[in-house]
C-alpha cells in the first residue's frame, strides 16, 4: 500500500473538531409537523433502545441500560459478529469513529505475533500493518497522533500497541476505495464503527468495498472508551488530568487526576456539536442535552471571519488575539464590577458586543476575532455544562472531544469558568486521548 493513496487531492483540508453529531438543536424552519411527529414517536417508544445516536435530542432523559446495542445494524452483520465472538478474533483490529468532520481510527498492532502466525498472515494484512505503523502521515490529510500511542497494551489476551489515526470525513470515499483496492473484504473482518458516518457510509462500505460495518452505539462507545482508556492509563501515567490555577499563565499546572471514583460524572463531548451525558455506572447513563454550538461552530465562524482554512490555523490565530477588543465586558458597561449581581468587571457581558460599532469593527484583527470566537463558544459550553451538573447534582465534569485537541486555551478557560462560577464546587477534568475516546471502545467491544 503506497503512501498517498489515502488522500485524494483536496483544495482544503480542514481538520476541524470531531463531530459526534451530538448537538441536535431545533431549527424552527422546515416541515415542523413532520418533525414533531417524529419526536413524538421517539418519545413514545422509549421502551425500545434508543438507536445509536446522540444526535437524537429526543433521547434526552431516557436512561440507557443496554450497552453496545446493535439496533439498527443489519442482522447479517449481527450474526457475523456473534459468530466472530465465539472464535478467536481475527486481525486486523480496527475501530472507526466517523464524525461529521473527522474520522478517528484506532488500530491495534499486535506485537506478540508468533512466527507461525506471521507465516499464515496474508499479504494484505501484513501490508496494512506495515503501512499504518511505519508512517505518521497518510496521503495529504491522514495523520497518526504518535504522541497518543499506547504501548505494550494487553487487549483480549494479545499484547500490542494501540495507534491513533485521524483524517477528514470528506476523504471517506478515498478510504473506502482503498479498502476495495486492498481487498479488505478477503480478511474476514468486520469494521466496528460508530458515529453518524457509520450510518451515512454503511451502504458505500458494502457496495464499493464489499465490507460490512458493525455499527455501534455512539454513546455506549464513548462511555466505554473513557472508562477503558482510564483503566489502562497513559503509558504509565494517569489518563485523566485537571488544571490548577488555570487563570494564571505562570502558575497554571496540569495535574493528574485519579478517576478511581468515576461515578456519577458528567461527560461533555465536544465535537462539531456538543453532547452532554450523565454517567451513573458503566451501563447506566443518559443523554442530558446537547448544543449545536461546538467545535464546528468555532471553526466554521473562524473560516468566515478570518479566512483561515485549518483548525490548527484557527487556534494559532486565537492564541495571538485579544478578545476584549471584540467582546463587551461588564466593565465596559459598568466601569468596573457590577456588584449588585456579583459580576466581575472582566466577565463578558456581550460576546461580539463591541462589533456593533463601525470604528471598533475596523480596529480589530483577525486574531482578535478568532480569539473571541474561541472564548464565546468555550464559555457557552462551560455555562451549559455547569447548569447540567447543577441540575443533575454531579460535581465531576469530564470534557472530551476533538475540539480540545491542542486547545489549551479552551481547556484552561473551561477549568477556570467551572471553578469560578460554581465557587469551587465543580471540577473540570480532561483526558489525554480526548478525541479518540469513542474508538477503542469499538475495538474493545468486539472482544
Amino acid at each position, binding site marked *: 500500500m503506497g503512501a498517498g493513496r489515502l488522500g485524494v487531492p483536496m483544495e482544503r483540508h480542514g481538520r476541524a473538531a470531531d463531530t459526534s453529531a451530538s448537538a*441536535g438543536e431545533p431549527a424552527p424552519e422546515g416541515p415542523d409537523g413532520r418533525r414533531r411527529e417524529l419526536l413524538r414517536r421517539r418519545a413514545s417508544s422509549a421502551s425500545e433502545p434508543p438507536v445509536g445516536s446522540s444526535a437524537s435530542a429526543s433521547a434526552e432523559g431516557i436512561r440507557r441500560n443496554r450497552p453496545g446495542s446493535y439496533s439498527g445494524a443489519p442482522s447479517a452483520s449481527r450474526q457475523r459478529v456473534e459468530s466472530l465472538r465465539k472464535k478467536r478474533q481475527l486481525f486486523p483490529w480496527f475501530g472507526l469513529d466517523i464524525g461529521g468532520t473527522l474520522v478517528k481510527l484506532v488500530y491495534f498492532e499486535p506485537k506478540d505475533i508468533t512466527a507461525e502466525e506471521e507465516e499464515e498472515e496474508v499479504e494484505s494484512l501484513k501490508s496494512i500493518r506495515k503501512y499504518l505503523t511505519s508512517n505518521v502521515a497518510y496521503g495529504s490529510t491522514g495523520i497518526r497522533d504518535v504522541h497518543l500511542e499506547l504501548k505494550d497494551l494487553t487487549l483480549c489476551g494479545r499484547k500490542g500497541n494501540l495507534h491513533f489515526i485521524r483524517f477528514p470525513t470528506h476523504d471517506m470515499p478515498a478510504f473506502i476505495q482503498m479498502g476495495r483496492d486492498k481487498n479488505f473484504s478477503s480478511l474476514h473482518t468486520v469494521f466496528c464503527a460508530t458515529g453518524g458516518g457509520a450510518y*451515512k457510509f454503511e451502504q458505500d462500505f458494502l457496495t464499493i468495498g464489499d465490507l460490512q460495518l458493525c455499527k455501534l452505539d455512539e454513546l455506549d462507545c464513548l462511555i466505554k472508551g473513557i472508562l477503558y482508556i482510564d483503566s489502562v492509563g497513559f503509558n504509565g501515567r494517569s489518563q485523566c488530568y485537571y488544571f490548577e490555577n488555570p487563570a494564571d499563565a505562570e502558575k497554571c499546572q496540569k495535574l493528574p487526576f485519579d478517576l478511581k471514583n468515576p461515578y456519577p460524572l458528567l461527560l461533555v463531548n465536544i465535537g*462539531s456539536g456538543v453532547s452532554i451525558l450523565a454517567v451513573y455506572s458503566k451501563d447506566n447513563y443518559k443523554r442530558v*442535552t446537547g448544543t449545536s454550538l461546538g467545535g464546528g461552530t468555532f471553526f466554521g465562524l473562524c473560516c468566515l471571519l478570518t479566512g483561515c482554512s485549518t483548525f490548527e490555523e484557527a487556534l494559532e490565530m486565537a492564541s495571538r488575539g485579544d478578545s476584549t477588543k471584540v467582546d463587551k465586558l461588564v466593565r465596559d458597561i459598568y466601569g468596573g464590577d457590577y456588584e449588585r449581581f456579583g459580576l466581575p468587571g472582566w466577565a463578558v457581558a456581550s460576546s461580539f458586543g463591541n462589533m456593533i460599532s463601525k470604528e471598533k469593527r475596523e480596529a480589530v484583527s483577525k486574531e482578535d476575532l478568532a480569539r473571541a470566537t474561541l472564548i464565546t463558544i468555550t464559555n457557552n459550553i462551560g455555562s451549559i455544562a455547569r447548569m447540567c451538573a447543577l441540575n443533575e447534582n454531579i460535581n465531576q465534569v469530564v470534557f472530551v472531544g476533538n475540539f480540545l485537541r491542542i486547545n489549551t486555551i479552551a481547556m484552561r478557560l473551561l477549568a477556570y469558568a467551572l471553578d469560578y462560577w460554581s465557587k469551587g464546587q465543580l471540577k473540570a477534568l480532561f483526558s489525554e486521548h480526548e478525541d479518540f475516546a469513542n474508538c477503542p471502545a469499538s475495538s474493545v467491544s468486539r472482544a
Partner: protein
Amino acid sequence: MTCLIKGCNFVLRNIPHEAFAYQKDSDPEFRFQTNHPDIFPYLLVNIGSGVSIVKVETEDRFEWVGGSSIGGGTFWGLGALLTKTKKFDELLHLASKGQHTSVDMLVQDVYGGAHQTLGLSGDLIASSFGKSAAADKEFSKEDMAKSLLHMISNDIGQLACLYAKLHCLDRVYFGGFFIRGHPVTMRTITYSINFFSKGEVQALFLRHEGYLGAIGAFLKGAEQDNPNQYSWGENYAGSSGLMSSSPELCPTQRVRSGTFDLLEMDRLERPLANLPLLLDPSSYVPDTVDLTDDALARKYWLTCFEEALDGVVKRAVASQPGSVDAAERAEKFRQKYWRKLQTLRHQPFAYGTLTVRSLLDTREHCLNEFNFPDPYSKVKQKENGVALKCFPRVIRCLDALGWEERQLALVKGLLAGNVFDWGAKAVSDVLESDPQFGFEEAKSKLQERPWLVDSYGKWLQRLKGPPHKCALIFADNSGIDVILGVFPFVRELLSRGTEVILACNSGPALNDVTYCESLIVAERIAAMDPVVHSALKEERLLLMQTGSSSPCLDLSRLDKGLAVLVRERGADLVVIEGMGRAVHTNYYAALRCESLKLAVIKNPWLAERLGGRLFSVIFKYEVPAE
C-alpha cells in the same frame, strides 16, 4: 434592573392580556394570558446585548441567577461582521429570508439518509455554522444571518430552560431589544423553549415589554405617592397596538424597531380587587367569546361597531348643544375609532385578546379622548325623570299581585327595563324613532316563556325557601331599567329580609347608570317609598361603585371597597343584568354562591347564534355544586 422588575410586576398585575405566548403556525398566532392573581414566582430573561436571567419571587425580592454573553449584541455584532449589514433590523430582515441549512451542519448531513430509519429528525442542527468550515464556498448573507439567529435563539432558550428547571419555574417571560415584538425572534425562542423543555416551560412575551424600565422608573418616582392606592388600566384610545407579525403586510410600519409607540394608562383613583365570590380567580376569564379566535364573530362585531358609529357620533354631538366645536371633535372621534376598527380587522391581537368588551371599551376611551365623557347624560336625566314619575304606579300594581304572580312580574320588569339599552343598535333605532316607547310596550316585546335560557322555575322554588343573607346586584341602564326594573326587585329582596348591595359603574359608559346617578335616584325613590327609605337608613341597602367605566364587567377588577363589603356582608347571591355584563362577559363565570344572570338579547345576530330570536330572554339561575 430594579425598575425593570418593578415595571414587569406592574404590567403583569394591571394590564389585561399583557402576557402572551407566540405560536407561528396557529391561528391566532398570539395567545393572551388572563391576569393571574399569583404572578410570582417567575423567571425574567432579558435579552439586551447580553442575557440576564432574573428570578422574581415577590414584589420586592428578585435575584440575578445567571446570564449569558451570547445575546442581542452577539447577533448584531457578529451579524455585522459576517454580512456587512450594519442595522439590527436589517439583519433580522435578512434572517427572515435565509435558509440556515446551507450553513448549519444538520443531523442528516452527519447520518446521511439513515436518520429516517433511526427515527431521528434529520433537520435538527448538529453543529451551527458546521458547514461553513467544510467547504470553500461563499454563503449568502441571508443564510448566515438565519443560522446566526437560530444559533443565538436556541442557545438562549436552552439556558432559560436549564435555569427554569434548576429553580423549578414554569413561567418564563422574555424581554429586551432582541425580542421586542420581532416575530422572527419570538418564534425561534418559543420553538427552542418548547424543544428543550419538552413543553414543560412556557415562553411568554409582554405586550409592553419595551416600557418596563420606564414604567418602573415612573412608579419609583411616584413612590411617595404610594401607587398601590391606585389602580391602572390601559387606555385603548391612546395606546398604539402590537405590530403586525407579518412584515410584508405593512412594510412601512416595520421601519421602527419597537412594537409599540405609545402606551397610555389611566389611573383609577382606587385600588381594584377580585370579587371574593369567584370560584377560581386564576381561571376566571370575563369574556364569553374570544374574537381573535372566532373569525366569524369578529367579522360580525367589527361590522356592527362600524355601522353603529354614525349614531354614536350623532349622539355625541347632540349631547353638547352649547359647544361650538362638538361636531369637529365628534368627527375626529369618528376617524380615530374607525382607524382602530380597521387596525383590528387586520391585526385582531393588537391590544390583546379582541372581545366585544374591548371594542366597547375602546369606543368609550376614544369618546373620552375627544372630550365626550358622557354623551348620554341628557338622555339619562330625561329617562330617569320619566321613570321616577312611573315608580309609585308600578309599585302599587306589583303590591296588588299575589306572591307568586309578583315574583314573575318582578323578573319581567327587570327584563323589560333591560330592553332600554342605547348600546344595542336595534333598540337605539326604536328609541330614536319612538321616544314614547314605554315600559308596557317593552314588556310586550319580550319573548314568552319558556325563554331561551329559562331556569325561572328553579328560582321560584328557591324563593319559597329561606331569604338570602345579602344580594349583590350589578345594575345596567339608567332610567326605566334601574328605576322600574331593578329597584322594585331590590325592594322585594329587602322585604324578604335580604340585604342588598347595588353596584353601579364608577364612570359613565353609554346610558349605564353611574354610581353618582344611583345615589340621586335612590334618594328620590326613598322619598316615595318607606321600604327603600328605611333600608338606606339602616344600611341594609348599600350603594357602591364597581370601579369600572365599561359597559361590560370584569369581576377580577372590582373596586376594592366593594370587594371588602361583599366579604363583610357575606353576600350569597349575585345578580348580573344586561347583555354587556351577563352575556358578552360573565356568561360562563363560575361563582361560589348562587347567581342570577339576566339579559334580553337585543342583537339579531347574537340571538340567532344562541338559537333564539330578537328579544329572546336569558334567565340563568345557577347554584354552585356542593
